[in-house]
């Protein structure tokens, strides 16, 4: 059983970033070192264009059934989005000066 669509088998080493909720993704980000996020980003970001090309062929909505592999690929892409902020902007895991502030996504639209 593979976790991701076969074209993206190389990203399975980052299976721990396949997280279905924003809560888990944000916690993973805060719990990671910059080195860990940088290595995730350095490998996954160059693949993002291919991920998007594939994702464009996956319909979602009322009638659509999304496979587990495609769903996982989306969760991995969501994690990359989350990790891109420390890597591209902050140079640290948390938002500067955000202290203990929490702002959870309490209702996430499904697909």
């Amino acid at each position, binding site marked *: 059983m593979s976790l991701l669509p076969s074209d993206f088998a190389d990203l399975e080493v980052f299976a721990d970033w396949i997280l279905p909720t924003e809560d888990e993704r944000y916690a993973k980000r805060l719990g990671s070192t910059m080195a860990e996020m940088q290595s995730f980003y350095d490998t996954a*970001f160059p693949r*993002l*264009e291919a*991920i*998007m*090309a594939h*994702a*464009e*062929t*996956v*319909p*979602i*909505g009322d009638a659509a059934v*999304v496979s587990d592999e*495609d769903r996982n*690929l*989306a969760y991995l*892409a*969501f994690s*990359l*989005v*989350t990790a*891109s*902020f420390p890597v*591209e*902007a*902050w140079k640290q895991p948390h*938002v*500067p*000066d*955000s*202290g203990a*502030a*929490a*702002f*959870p*996504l*309490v*209702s*996430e*639209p499904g*697909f």
Partner: protein
Amino acid sequence: MAHFTKPAEGSWTELYPHLGTAPVSYQDSIDPEWFEDEREAVFKRSWLNLGRVEQLPRKGSYFTRELDAARTSLIIVRGADDEIRAFHNICRHRGNKLAWTDYPNEEDKGTCRQFACKYHGWRYDLEGELTFVQQEGEFFDLDKSDYGLVPVHLDVWEGFIFVNLADEPEQPLREFLGDLATGLDGYPFGEMTYCYEYVADVGANWKLFIDAFAEFYHAPILHMRQSVAEEASKLAGVGFEALHYEIYEPTAHSVVSSWGGMSPPADPSMVKPIENVLRSGLFGPWDKPEGIDLSTLPAGLNPAEHRAWGTDSFQVYPNMVILIWEPGWYLTYHYWPTAMNRHRFEARLYFAEPKNLAERISQELAAVTFKEFALQDGNTLEATQTMLESGVVREFPLCDQELLVRHLHHTVREQVNDYRAERDVAVAVGR
């Protein structure tokens, strides 16, 4: 140097002479007695938005809202006749809270055929009528039709559900919303129902967060590091100027219209790498949603008719914002006070339903970017609240780009003072 035209009066603020240009007192954000009077003067008298009709898809769909600001809990329900109604969430027998699950202070939602009280089993139908009394024969001359749920005034505008807790609202919803509603009628809110909902508990007076989102003077500074370095220093150098401000008199609602969006940006190096790949960012996905007609916008949008228009932030007094983005989506903010120096902040991002997974991933970047900004905005407020409470400084100068901040505090001050004057008269005549 001004980059955008200001009104002939010289400034936006001077268009509204009653607001003055003097420094503004923030006593209204640190005085517990003042806050108690805001509950009465503002929250029990204004139309308040509690959500959208899509939250009640079927007959029997309901949700409850804990309104600390007005010290009550409400049930909003779609009846068997498809009407949406609001009731105080209290049983007419001995006052138990009617709709809740597990934790009485937590909000509840779902679908039901009727409401049954957990205490002695009285039952109410979806229209609020009392239908069943346990051991009815034990009561004395009890006429069930006298013991329906206590109704609350409710009306709907463009799918937004508003309630008013006054016995008799001073005006109907439509009149309350005034030109703000007229200017937005027909915007396809109902076609943008794919919703990301955030909630935060913020240790600051409710007005302080409205202040933070009613001006963008802070944006180039507080959010500087969200932009790539070169763009950030350019933005900080230029500062922020709105395209247009307007207060929809005689109502207390207003709008600030801003440029921006860069969808897609003229120069890809202006935005972060991930934005280029996902074609998305703070202003949302760069590609407008397919199947929604945005070719002609309602007259209230882009009031300056500027080609660089990016977003309009509509302040729906007292505690709601509707922010519409040029690329074709919108968000709402709600600020629900829970104490003088605390409030619950809710943000909901509404997009068109994505057609494929790629569109969903683009939206994710917009949503995550929004959260990064909001975390910066929110934390500053707690720092502001504690220093305001020190009382060291009581009055603060506001610039022309902070017109809506000045206006909010002015309006609340007027309403509370009017309420206090009425109360004093009532006391004097011994009512």
